């Protein structure tokens, strides 16, 4: 155990673990925000290269799994941290959402069929999915 941990007040701070944990959570929130911002800027608003898409898939899967584990720990009745769990939960949902959109999209044939079946008269659908009406 490091000096930082044992020098903290044992009675109020669980031997420094609580303060250390708070720091780790803040870092995780910060890193999640950075990945979310990067995803919005470089992968959602632009057409990414296949290399960037593959790298993003690995990175986002890793952080989504990590967040899931930490949230599970924060919901443990022995160490409940509902506010931190909510904070991380919101990033987790957003990252999962972006991951699904980018890496598990609806196949092109289904997109076209769905457009024709449900949005045949919709001007926005006709603008965004012209290929559905080209045949």
């Amino acid at each position, binding site marked *: 155990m490091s000096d930082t941990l044992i020098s903290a007040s044992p009675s109020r701070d669980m031997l420094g673990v609580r303060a250390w944990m708070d720091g780790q959570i803040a870092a995780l929130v910060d890193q999640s925000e950075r990945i979310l911002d990067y995803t919005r800027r470089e992968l959602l608003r632009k057409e990414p290269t296949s290399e960037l898409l593959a790298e993003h898939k690995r990175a986002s899967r890793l952080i989504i799994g990590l967040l899931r584990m930490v949230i599970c720990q924060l919901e443990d009745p022995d160490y409940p941290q509902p506010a931190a769990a909510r904070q991380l939960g919101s990033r987790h949902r957003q990252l999962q959402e972006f991951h699904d959109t980018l890496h598990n999209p609806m196949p092109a044939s289904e997109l076209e069929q769905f457009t024709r079946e449900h949005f045949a008269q919709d001007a*926005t659908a006709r603008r965004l999915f012209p290929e559905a009406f080209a045949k």
Partner: protein
Amino acid sequence: MNTALEGLIQALNAWHEAGEDTEGRRESVYHSLLEDFTALHPGTNLAALDRYVRQAHLRWLRAQQKPAALPPKA
């Protein structure tokens, strides 16, 4: 023109852009609109509609980044 798909895309975008204080409400609005659509159009699968709107949102976002085409010279 605000079409049904445009409304769904805008609601999803508002959720994505929301800060921590409004995120929960924006998410609820988006899911309510999905449910409203399926109620008005029986036979529409909710999960498929959600997936479809996400792809539409992606195209909508990227289309907004592209500069408008120059008008043809007279």
